[in-house]
């Protein structure tokens, strides 16, 4: 469901060390990227140290009255079961971030494999993989995800797989384009001429060069995956209650939106803030890794 069009591949520098230092230097010069990093740090640290950050157990009922509005005691108020929403949001970050990351790891690794196969081997392999990718792209994304969830049975893990499968085509396309461009370079031809094995060439010379667009895409796709997960939760295909997953909490809370706005709003804000953070970081990374990629999404 991502929509990157990568027309250019970042230029190559052979010295990795200075390269990454340069990237970081460019990254921290962008205030929006800094903002993204700060937002993600807050969300991420809260999720990691959830047991110390959250004042209550996320599933403990009756810690407060049902529908208690936000207060000093319950920062984000309580839901109908008297559960502390702040604690649930904090713990929920663990699951929601996990959905995004795991889905992208699944989609990214499959896409990396298919894309490098298509780009490096070329010929029939390229044709086959690309047609396969075309077929996947032609399937309406959310229907594919729902079908996968129903085929595998509804669970959090299967939802991650379903969302991950949906990100494969873009990864494969981007990787393929980068591999194609890298393959054309002189030093790769030279390595070929010197009799260096394909595996070595791929690992040493080509893969490092596709990392830049890959990292950018992966970062931005974590955001897309979180939103896809939210949509699946809304359709009842995602996490199962009483899991404190943001999409599910938002989906449940929408019933009370006028009765107790805080029940759905805070999980919704958590999703939005996290996704904004990821998008800002992704944009920053893109600009830092290659200014020419700017604005391609």
């Amino acid at each position: 469901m991502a929509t990157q069009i990568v027309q250019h591949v970042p230029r190559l520098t052979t010295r990795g060390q200075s390269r990454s230092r340069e990237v970081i230097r460019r990254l921290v010069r962008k205030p929006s990227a800094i903002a993204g990093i700060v937002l993600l740090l807050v969300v991420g640290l809260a999720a990691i140290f959830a047991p110390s950050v959250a004042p209550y157990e996320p599933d403990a009922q009756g810690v407060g009255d049902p529908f208690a509005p936000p207060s000093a005691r319950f920062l984000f108020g309580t839901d109908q079961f008297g559960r502390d929403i702040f604690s649930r949001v904090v713990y929920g970050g663990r699951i929601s971030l996990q959905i995004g990351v795991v889905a992208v790891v699944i989609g990214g690794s499959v896409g990396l494999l298919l894309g490098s196969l298509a780009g490096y081997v070329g010929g029939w392999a390229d044709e086959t993989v690309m047609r396969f990718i075309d077929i996947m792209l032609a399937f309406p994304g959310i229907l594919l995800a729902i079908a996968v969830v129903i085929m595998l049975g509804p669970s959090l893990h299967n939802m991650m797989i379903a969302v991950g499968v949906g990100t494969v085509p873009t990864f494969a396309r981007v990787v393929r384009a980068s591999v194609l461009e890298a393959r054309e370079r002189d030093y790769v031809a030279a390595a070929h001429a010197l009799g260096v094995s394909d595996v070595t060439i791929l690992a040493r010379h080509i893969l490092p060069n596709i990392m830049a667009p890959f990292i950018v895409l992966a970062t931005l796709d974590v955001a897309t995956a979180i939103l896809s997960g939210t949509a699946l939760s809304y359709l009842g295909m995602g996490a199962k209650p009483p899991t404190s997953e943001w999409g599910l909490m938002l989906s449940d809370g929408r019933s009370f939106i006028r009765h107790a706005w805080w029940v759905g709003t805070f999980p919704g804000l958590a999703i939005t803030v996290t996704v904004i953070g990821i998008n800002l970081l992704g944009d920053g990374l893109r600009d830092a890794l290659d200014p020419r990629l700017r604005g391609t999404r």
Partner: protein
Amino acid sequence: MVNRTLRIMLVLGLFPILSLYAISQAFTAPATPAAVPQPGGTLVIVTHQKPAHLDPGVHTSRYTAMINQNTHDPLIWQIEANKFAPGLAERWEAAPDFRSYTFYLRRDVKFHDGTPMNAESIKVTWDRIRDPRTRSTRAPFLGDYLRTEVVDPFTVRVFFKDPYPQFLQSVANIGLGPSSPAAIQRLGDNFLKTPVATGPFRVQGWPDENTLVLVKNPDYRWGPAHMRNRGPAHLDRVVFKFIEEEQTKTLALERREAHVAEDPARHMAPTFRTDPRYQLMMHKTSGVPQHWAFNVTRWPSNDLAVRRAANYALDKEKIARIAFFNTATPATGPLTDTNWAYWPDAKKYFPYDPTRAVEILDGAGYKRNPSTKFYEKDGRPVRMRLVTTSTWEQVRAATLANAMMKEVGIDFVVEAMVYDATVQRYSNNEYELGRLGLSTFDPDGLWGAFHSSQITGGTQWNRGRLNNKELDALLDKGRETSDFEQRKRVYWQAQKMLLDMANAIYVWEDHYFFAAQSCVKGWVWNLLGTYELHNVWLEGDCRRIGN
């Protein structure tokens, strides 16, 4: 002495008047008696489930039955547990062996397409339902159907292979109401979408896929005697809009874009109840209440002590209050208290008593693990998985139950999933508690839920996997008995047996939950839990909505 006789006479006289009043109240819940119906207008109902089709002879669900009640007529009407009234049939008689029934039809009834309703149309309708090519889910209503005979143009007789004492109840169902044979011929498969029958409204069409329009049948003269309006409907049109999102339905009602909302947000119940702009129209269902059946083939749900303890541990009042905002009522036993065969002593069984639950578990040799706080036996924790659907009702109730069970040391795991996934788990026997609720007017619902023949198969309604010969015999007997009082006693015995073995946690009794503008008048629920719109009229500015 005279005084005393007078008093008795008075009381005796009051009794029928009071019961009449009670019955009339039951039929006309929120209506104001003095108002005069005003004809005309369009009623807009937002409801959530879009019907696959509208032919009650092929399939009905809770949602389509509500619509079909207004487009179709039954041959006879059930007005009390054991009492039927004339509908399209003026009178009827059953053969002494209950193998055949004769219906004498009204002569003035016309289908919406103008063709007359007669004995032939009943025969065509019923033969069609029984035809395997129709794939009708209503076929079981016709039992061991042999044939329908046209005795004369307005007399029809139906024959069964085996005695069928409960057939009148089936005939009172809208599913066996006559359809126009001419229209079935003419419309082919389109008949499913736009059926042609005899009801007070006819299906005008579907302006788009989510909107259904009914228009008044101006020739309607055959309304049943228990209805205030026996002639044509007051309303000109009824528009159904099918919307799934609860918020959208609620807002449509509040913004006055709809007159009636089915299943709006439940937390709005107090507002709809007290705000003079609205009225709440609820109907308590009858049948087997929503329950979680203990799987008696798995540990620990096969232990009576565990089952009883879990029953005492559940605060059903709290579930009704917090999960349903008091729009559902706590259940007490295998039948809802609205059912005519409800056993009154069921109430005494399992009050909320967590101390008692703990005592039972202690007494049965379970030990509480000090670190997990859960009871254990032979190192195995008392852990039960409830496999249930992920509807908000189930999820909310189960979430509350999870905390209540934890209090008494029972690890109650909620596994909510889509319907088909639950069915798979039930057939694989991978659960300790299974969900079921059946809405049936007849207590025979107990047979479906607890008879041993219902353990296997895709839907598998007997989710407790109860296999008790004595219970089976009772449930079979209830089916075969024709005498009303005798049936009641049979079902009382069955309920006692089930409660003695604490076979399930009976959690709540559903209410149909409808809210409307207060200017909607004359709303009527009938005995079977469907509404009859030909009594409804709109007052004042309510008539502007939908035009």
